[in-house]
């Protein structure tokens, strides 16, 4: 066992090296020249074929072209459904495109039940990543290219203010009702712009994605075309529809109007609404609660309330007891493979709720799980590997979509002595120099990681000590360095155990920084308390992951290293404290990334990274950590590379090999 584990470690390490090579190279490449800014997808006149060329790009697919004859799953035969051609939209989508180096697409076979396990009530992240459908797609999740998904395509004007969206003709909800701009109109005008249902307009739908921007404007052009416009350029809007915040098609933009109208005060028959309220045990007049309950958003797609809700997902929930939830294929699902087989390939999903995360591991190694990502942890890798044969599964290593635990020093903590020290960039650089990346990687991540590339990864204690001496932090009689007040300078790190690596990593960091003569302490606190302390600006130093630095979102941990400055930004200067000029510049750059079209955003993100390196706002010490993914050995079309998150795992393409 031991030898096989070692060889596995070695080969995975090699794999991770090559992988990171690809990624690093890709991310730094200058963006490809695009002739004009008028459209984002390559050929707007024939968007569907353009998509399909990409989609079928893998081995075994027809070269380009939309199939004209369609086949359905044997499960539907004799079920009295309309012919499959009529259930599919005229603008059918051919599979989910993925970069060919990440997925070698194979034509699958129908059938089977896929089993997942979750330990959270009403939430199964593994089902979510397989089924969630965003409005637009961004293959490989890096956002370099944006293609159609639920929407057929979109067009943006040169000023980046006006977006025309084209829907798929003949697209149908899972109950067979057509999807048109009527649904979009209802979702936007009657839900989003209804102050009872949406008391505060979401910032990402305001101009520039900012809280103080003007809300978007909406216009229906025809049955299948609608327009969203802003009064300021907002080139980052499509990427927000595609992946950011895991948004599904049904979060704000597209909801089944024909179903939801019966719970909306404006449309519902008062008597029926009252009866529905009574049935759901709501008080009189609580129609908003009832509506919110009936309106299933993407985050709620694994809640029992989703039964009977019309969706566009590959599977729809059919049954939910207190331990098991079942999903069956959606007869009206809009994607096919390049040979015209309607997706998904797999008939059913069965999601089991267990009492805790260890039960998930137990079921995983016993081979009772076909797809497990959320509960899999790097720390359990030897256990997975040991039982791989017996359990009939494979353990893959995908890229983690978050940075592994970063280290934060709160520069706005309310103590002048503390601020004076930590706001000095020399201090932060010294701490950064004292982090021994190699030791972190070897002991905490078993070699499945690399030194971070955003901030300088040099390990040099002498240089670090020199910087601290330069700052005038002398050592006192007790051997500890002193702050400007002449007292021992203490860094109290408080962490919650949100991930398995947080506590051991903190212990290591405490040792590193102690070597500089600093008094560093560590305390593990309850996660809720940790959150409350963070919100109250009471955390001085902590560790948690962030989402962006490795790919593409605007979260650079500002709430942890500059809580009051971020508060100032979010409230338009009403609360918090005004940040210094360099921080403001950093905020502006992040903002530029969020509002620019992909090509410009990728350029801007390089600037953000260089600012980050110059100022070391916080410590992104490691990247390219691996996330284990446990899948049934017979499961096909699982991406072998790329991020371990939604979009990469399009469950409709999975199939059981014979």
């Amino acid at each position, binding site marked *: 066992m031991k030898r096989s584990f070692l060889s596995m470690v070695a080969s995975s390490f090699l794999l991770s090296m090559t992988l990171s090579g690809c990624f690093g190279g890709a991310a730094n490449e200058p963006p490809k020249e695009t002739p004009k800014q008028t459209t984002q997808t390559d050929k707007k006149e024939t968007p569907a074929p353009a998509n399909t060329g990409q989609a079928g790009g893998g081995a075994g697919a027809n070269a380009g072209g939309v199939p004209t004859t369609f086949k359905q799953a044997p499960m539907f035969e004799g079920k009295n459904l309309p012919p499959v051609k009529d259930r599919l939209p005229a603008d059918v989508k051919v599979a989910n495109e993925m970069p060919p180096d990440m997925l070698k697409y194979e034509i699958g076979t129908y059938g089977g039940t896929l089993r997942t396990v979750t330990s959270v009530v*009403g939430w199964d992240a593994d089902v979510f990543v397989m089924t969630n459908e965003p409005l637009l797609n961004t293959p490989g999740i890096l956002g370099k290219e944006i293609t159609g998904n639920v929407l057929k395509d979109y067009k943006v004007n040169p000023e980046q203010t006006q977006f025309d969206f084209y829907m798929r003709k003949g697209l149908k909800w899972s109950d067979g009702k057509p999807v048109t701009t009527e649904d979009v109109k209802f979702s936007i005008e009657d839900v989003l712009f209804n102050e009872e249902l*949406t*008391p505060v307009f979401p910032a990402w739908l305001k101009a520039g994605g900012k809280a103080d921007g003007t809300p978007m404007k909406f216009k229906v052009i025809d049955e299948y075309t609608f327009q969203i416009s802003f009064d300021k350029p907002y080139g980052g809007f499509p990427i927000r529809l595609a992946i950011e*915040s895991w948004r599904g098609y049904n979060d704000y933009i597209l909801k089944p109007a024909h179903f939801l109208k019966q719970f909306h005060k404006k449309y519902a028959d008062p008597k029926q609404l009252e009866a529905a309220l009574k049935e759901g045990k709501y008080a009189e007049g609580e129609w908003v*609660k009832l509506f919110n309950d009936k309106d299933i958003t993407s*985050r709620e797609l694994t809640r029992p309330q989703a039964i009977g809700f019309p969706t566009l997902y590959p599977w729809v929930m059919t049954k939910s007891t207190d*331990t098991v939830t079942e999903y069956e294929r959606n007869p009206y699902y809009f994607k096919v493979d390049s040979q015209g087989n309607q997706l998904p390939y797999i008939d059913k999903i069965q999601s089991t709720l267990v009492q*805790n995360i260890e039960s998930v591991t137990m079921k995983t190694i*016993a081979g009772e799980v076909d797809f497990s990502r959320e509960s899999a942890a790097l720390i359990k890798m030897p256990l997975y590997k040991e039982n791989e044969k017996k359990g009939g599964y494979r353990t893959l290593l995908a890229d983690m979509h978050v940075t592994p635990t970063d280290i934060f020093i709160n520069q706005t903590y309310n103590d002048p002595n503390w601020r004076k020290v930590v706001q000095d960039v020399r201090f932060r650089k010294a701490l950064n120099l004292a982090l021994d990346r190699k030791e972190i990687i070897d002991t905490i991540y078993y070699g499945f990681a690399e030194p971070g590339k955003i901030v300088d990864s040099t390990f040099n204690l002498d240089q670090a000590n020199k910087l601290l001496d330069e700052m005038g932090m002398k050592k006192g009689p007790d051997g500890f360095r002193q702050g400007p007040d002449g007292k021992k300078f203490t860094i109290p790190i408080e962490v919650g155990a949100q991930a398995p690596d947080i506590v051991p990593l903190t212990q290591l960091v405490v040792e590193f920084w102690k070597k500089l003569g600093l008094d560093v302490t560590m305390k593990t606190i309850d996660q809720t308390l940790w959150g409350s302390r963070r919100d109250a600006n009471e955390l001085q130093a902590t560790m948690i992951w962030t989402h962006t630095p490795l790919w593409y979102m605007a979260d650079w941990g500002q709430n942890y290293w500059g809580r009051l400055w971020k508060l100032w930004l979010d409230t338009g200067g009403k609360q918090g404290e005004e940040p210094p000029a360099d921080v403001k510049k950093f905020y502006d750059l992040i903002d530029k990334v969020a509002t620019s079209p992909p090509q410009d955003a990728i350029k801007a993100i390089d600037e953000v990274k260089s600012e980050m390196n110059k100022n070391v706002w916080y410590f992104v010490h490691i990247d390219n950590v691996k996330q284990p993914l446990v899948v049934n050995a017979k499961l096909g079309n699982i991406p072998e590379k790329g991020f371990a998150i939604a979009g990469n795992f399009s469950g409709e393409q999975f199939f059981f090999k014979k």
Partner: protein
Amino acid sequence: MLHFIGHRLLQLIPLLIAISIIVFVIIQLPPGDFLTTYIQQLELSGTKVDAGTIISLKQQYGLDQPAYMQYFIWMKNILLHGDLGRSFQWNMPVSEVIGERLGLTMLISTLTLVFVWVVAIPIGIYSATHQYSFLDYVFTFIGFIGLAVPGFLIALILVYAVFVNTGVSITGLFSPEYVNAPWSWDKVVNMLQRIWLPIVVIGMSGTAGLIRVTRGMLLDELQKQYVITARAKGVEERRLLFKYPVRMAINPLISTIGWTLPGIISGEAIVSIVLNMPTTGPILLKALMFQDMYLAGSFLLILSVLTVVGTLLSDILLAVVDPRIRFGGVQE
């Protein structure tokens, strides 16, 4: 007697009010509420939660009211409509969340109780009547192990041993193919194949304890004058034993009914978590962790009521069974 019962029932009212207030306060004590926990989870998983969502969630969950108002609304609904409130986590009425799992919990707990009694009482009697015999030592030894080792550890060891040897994970009450199947004879058989494990594990410490108690009590009784007198008068040994001393010795069974009743509902939370049992214990734990206040509060309230009712029951039974016991208010 009726006077006594009436008296005790009246005492229950202020007691239950006090309990409900304490329960609610305790649940509210940790920082934040369900929503802060929920929003934090969303944030950490990369979903941006803006101010608007927070406000509408607050309204949706009724968390925009001050805590005492939440308490009054909760109490009002319980008293006037028998409505225990909504569970945030499950987004269902509390009664439905608890109700679904109550049946299995009661089944397991009742069977455990029967198991404990059936095993412990005969062994206790045997140990007492054969004090310091070889078997007495054996039972004592096993009993102490059962008392000393926590149930969840035994459960862990059993689960591990079965997995390593057979490759089967015996978690849950049903094998995967039966979990969602409608009730049938096969499903019952399938359950019976698995249900013994939690029963034995949960019952282990109870059995051990009861053996010791029965043994001790019976040894006490056997020394007493009335036993010696009866034996001297030539009463047959077996009849002598069961007619009086055993009756006295099983007194603890009755006096502990007060704790047994809530035990039947709450189940053994930790063992249930380890064995992945769909019972109520793990729900209570999760509800407390997520500050799902109406669910946790209703649960604790039900448990408290059961404890109080159980104590009342055991008081009455004791008065009936043991003529030596008298209460204030009971007429001679």
